[in-house]
């Protein structure tokens, strides 16, 4: 028994036995494939760090991160307008997409007729597969005019007392960028949320129903609390995507390196400025400052993605104990 187990590729390697050549080749290949990922990720950070170092030296890390002016011609490089634009548009995207995605997932997983699931799932997948430049074009031709003529006047009338919804209504700006990001991250959040909902033990839902819970009460006491951490993980995955989106955002955000409290105003985002200015950057400091922006973006995304991973892991472990 022990001898036959040792020959299985999954068993712990025993140094005394000579493994077959195929096994060894296979394991070398797997280690190489796994290591390549780490190597590439490490190289990206290394290369970005080296490219960004001159900018950090010349400007100072604090002044670079907190600087509000970005004028390559006069040598002013402040990252804050881009960090701000990235975070604000992503926040708008999450606020809009999360309720829709959770509602959609609950409908598909708990309420809706099973017949409806495949077409809706297909529609969601389609949303995920549309190239972002198409979203940008759609945003420019459809979303931005609609935001200018309908959404912004409405918000200004209802919530105009908030600084968020003041100022000239031009359509191009944080709000349009946030809305287009919302559509783009909806499939990510909805897909992961559905997985989380599906992983909830049916016994838990039956337990609620057996107490005389209605379907909605069952969702409230058994489904949503159990799925909470997983939905948070899904949200962070969507956020990661929103933070890095380049093309669609730059087409509708207005590309102005400024900071405004109003969502109606034009702004700029980290990936957008990198993509727009990289080809035309002539001074070494400008290039280095763009690399520094990339490093900032990478840092934010990495932190959020790791958090998402930990959260999803925690939920599944908790459910494993409960079932």
């Amino acid at each position, binding site marked *: 028994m022990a001898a036959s187990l040792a020959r299985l590729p999954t068993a712990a390697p025993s140094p005394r036995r000579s493994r077959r050549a195929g096994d060894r080749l296979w394991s070398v290949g797997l280690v190489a494939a796994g290591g390549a990922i780490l190597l590439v990720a490490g190289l990206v950070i290394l290369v970005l760090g080296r490219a960004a170092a001159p900018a950090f030296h010349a400007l100072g890390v604090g002044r670079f991160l907190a600087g509000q002016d970005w004028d390559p011609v006069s040598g002013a490089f402040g990252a804050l307008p881009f960090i701000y634009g990235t975070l604000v548009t992503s926040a708008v995207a999450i606020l809009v997409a999360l309720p829709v995605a959770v509602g959609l997932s609950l409908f598909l997983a708990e309420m809706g007729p099973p017949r409806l699931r495949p077409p809706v799932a297909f529609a969601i997948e389609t949303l995920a597969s549309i190239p972002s430049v198409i979203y940008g074009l759609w945003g420019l031709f459809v979303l931005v005019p609609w935001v200018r003529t309908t959404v912004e006047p409405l918000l200004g009338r209802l919530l105009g007392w908030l600084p968020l919804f003041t100022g000239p209504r031009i359509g191009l700006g944080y709000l349009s960028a946030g809305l287009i990001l919302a559509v783009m991250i909806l499939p990510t959040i909805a897909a992961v949320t559905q997985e989380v909902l599906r992983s909830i033990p049916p016994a838990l839902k039956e337990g609620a129903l057996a*107490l*005389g819970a209605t379907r909605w009460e069952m969702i409230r006491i058994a489904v949503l609390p159990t799925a909470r951490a997983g939905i948070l993980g899904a949200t962070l995955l969507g956020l990661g995507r929103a933070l890095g989106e380049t093309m669609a955002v730059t087409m509708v955000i207005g590309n102005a390196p400024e900071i405004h409290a109003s969502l109606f105003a034009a702004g700029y985002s980290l990936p957008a400025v990198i993509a727009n200015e990289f080809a035309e950057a002539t001074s070494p400091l400008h290039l280095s400052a763009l690399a520094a922006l990339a490093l900032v973006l990478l840092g934010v995304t990495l932190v959020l993605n790791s958090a998402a991973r930990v959260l999803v892991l925690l939920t599944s472990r908790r459910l494993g104990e*409960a079932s």
Partner: protein
Amino acid sequence: MSAAPQASPTATKISVERLDAWYGATHAVRGVSLEIPDRAVTALIGPSGCGKSTFLRCLNRMHELLPSARAEGRVLLDGEDLLSGEVDPVDLRRRVGMVFQRPNPFPTLSIRDNVIAGFKLNGMRGGRAETVERCLRQAALWDEVKDRLGASPLSLSGGQQQRLCIARALAVEPEVLLMDEPASALDPIATARLEELIHELKERYTIVLVTHNLQQAARTSDQTAFFYMGELAEAGRTEQIFTNPRERRTEDYVTGKFG
């Protein structure tokens, strides 16, 4: 010993008349008629796939959770037909509670909130702290958890979790308690405690217990119903079923010739 099948003089709580149930094309319960006496334990026994769990689920319409399932016949709870369109399953399940094979406390709620989850849902009157204590005492769990009511139910052992689920079901003040192999995930000591508890609970509640464990049925129940291939092969006083069955199939099953 007389030959009367219903020796117990108590009133009938649930009267099942020619019940048929299907899961898709599977005819799981075939023409079963059974009287379930009030404030007594009725054990449902039989080999796997004999329809006893399906039968149990028809008693509070939990079978409807599978879209392909349907049931025909009459299930009268105090004379009212549960399967008729007029009975709301949500109201029904407040009267007919259920305990499942594996303990299924709500993992994100505290022990206290688990007990009163159904109580809150139903907007019931009365002090919550008193209800928690009363139900936990009835479920023989109070002394073990009274100092940590705010803790997670996952910190309890399997047997304790199962008693917590019973307390949770009792908080809704049901009339009938359905138990679907409640001890199947428990160790022998926890099982013994659960059987003691069942014995105490039948003073107040009508209990229907599905079990794979013949000794458990013999120890805890007043009436036993033997299901075979979806049919009710034989039902009667537990003592009679185990010592003097009328049917050959029953005798073979309770003596361990198959199952």
